[in-house]
């Protein structure tokens, strides 16, 4: 392809008109609206299904949902999750649940925020939250343990209460939190 070069006259060939035009342009930008976001003070607006840090959630009764099936550990592409499974103590409430994680670690430096763990979890116990600024002073500090993950996750208000009922909940079961105090005891029983 032949590029058509414009014929410049003498004045244009001095480059001065273009230089002056350019300087006018840059000058005009000085008072214009700035696009900088003052980050720590002004947080960015996250879009709807933003995938931030993965965390463990509790059900509306405050019970740990995770049953340490280790599916997330196996599916995790960068192997960021490490679960130490454990059996539930004899005589503990909610004996319909057999297992719970004794320790649950996510290395936030390895995590790639792919969301596979959330997708694979049969108990809907692990969710990617909206936290995006994960920082610390050492590598060890960024290996979040079970307690930290539960703190970050908090309670998830949904209708999946597998631990409360064996099999399907009886018809007419309210969707949402039912706080009878019993569940709270259970969650403290680690």
């Amino acid at each position, binding site marked *: 392809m032949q590029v058509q070069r414009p014929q410049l006259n003498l004045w244009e060939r001095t480059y001065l008109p273009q*230089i002056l035009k*350019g*300087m006018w*342009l*840059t*000058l005009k*930008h*000085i*008072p*214009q*609206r*700035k*696009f*900088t976001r*003052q980050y720590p003070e002004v947080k960015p607006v996250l879009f709807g299904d933003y995938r931030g840090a993965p965390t463990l959630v509790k059900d509306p009764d405050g019970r740990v949902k995770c049953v340490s099936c280790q599916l997330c550990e196996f599916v995790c592409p960068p192997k960021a999750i490490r679960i130490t499974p454990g059996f539930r103590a004899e005589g503990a409430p909610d004996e319909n649940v057999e297992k719970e994680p004794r320790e649950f670690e996510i290395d936030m430096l390895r995590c790639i925020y792919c969301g596979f763990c959330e997708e694979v979890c049969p108990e809907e116990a692990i969710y990617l939250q909206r936290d995006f600024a994960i920082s610390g002073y050492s590598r060890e500090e960024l290996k979040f343990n079970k307690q930290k993950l539960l703190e970050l996750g908090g309670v998830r208000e949904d209708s999946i209460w597998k631990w409360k009922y064996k099999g399907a909940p009886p018809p007419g079961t309210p969707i949402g939190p039912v706080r009878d105090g019993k569940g709270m005891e259970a969650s403290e029983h680690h």
Partner: protein
Amino acid sequence: MNEILIHLLKIAGVIGVMLTIVAYTVMLERWVCAWMQDRIGPNRVGPFGLLQPLADGVKFIFKEDVLPHHVRHKIYFTLAPAITMVPALITIAVVPWGSYLPVFGRNIKGVLADLDVGILYVFAIASLGVYGIVLAGWASNSKYPFLGGIRSSAQMISYEVCLGLSVVPVFMQVGALNLSRVVEYQATHTWLVLCQPLSFFIFMVSAFAETNRTPFDLPEAEQELVGGYHTEYSSMKFAMFFLGEYANMFVASALMVTLFFGGWSLPFAPFNAPAVTLPVGLAHIGIFLAKVIFFLFVFIWVRWTIPRFRYDQLMALGWKVFVPLTIVNIFFTGMVIMVFFNR
């Protein structure tokens, strides 16, 4: 004794004010650059980020001073930043900052050294600045600084020719080389930029080349030469180059103001005559500095607008355009003076 004391005070004042302005020019550069790119710029250190230069200075002092293992001649490597910095500081001596400062019954001159060879002194000393850069490029003993040094020597030598020739018409018109005379001439007559616009334009462009500023910053072209002659420098040595560049900008601005924009004068009373009272004397210094700061802004403005020249374009512009133009300008000015003023 008193004379010496006054001179020392003047030197301290001039260097102090100059270095402060230089430090703040660095910040102004970052601000203007940011504004032109729709960003905010440094605003964290102190109110509106005004303490940024201080933080930068502290950082430079405390940073590790790296001496690369391939530097063979440590003395030249160390000397180079000083040689770049010093000429910039001593050329300011002949530039008149103000007319007079009448204090305690004395009439203190607003210039450090009222030399009759003023502009020749400036060119003589300013030429030394290139040695620092060439020395840095050579002593670093690595390829990018070397290329930067080579480019710098070629560029600065060519543009020194235009720079020198471009101001000749000014002195032909004024009839003196003393910069104070030049300013007084402009105070009583008219600003020389109106009589010698071509001279001013060529002087300004050559000054950009002499101070290694965009569009002629080939010696330190960040993209191609990784910073050019100061690639291997760190800590305070790098800061010296940096300050040297901005001090050179200051001197170039001061010269433009002095030669073409009436120095300390404004074209109305009481600013169009040497000061007889202290407030006017101080106002003259203020006027001078305001004009200088405007030209510093122009330097920055041009830097963030115009892309860098190619090396052959740079040389072609210098030798094939500016040198002939300046000679024609000198000839033309001479003709006009001879024909119309019979001098």
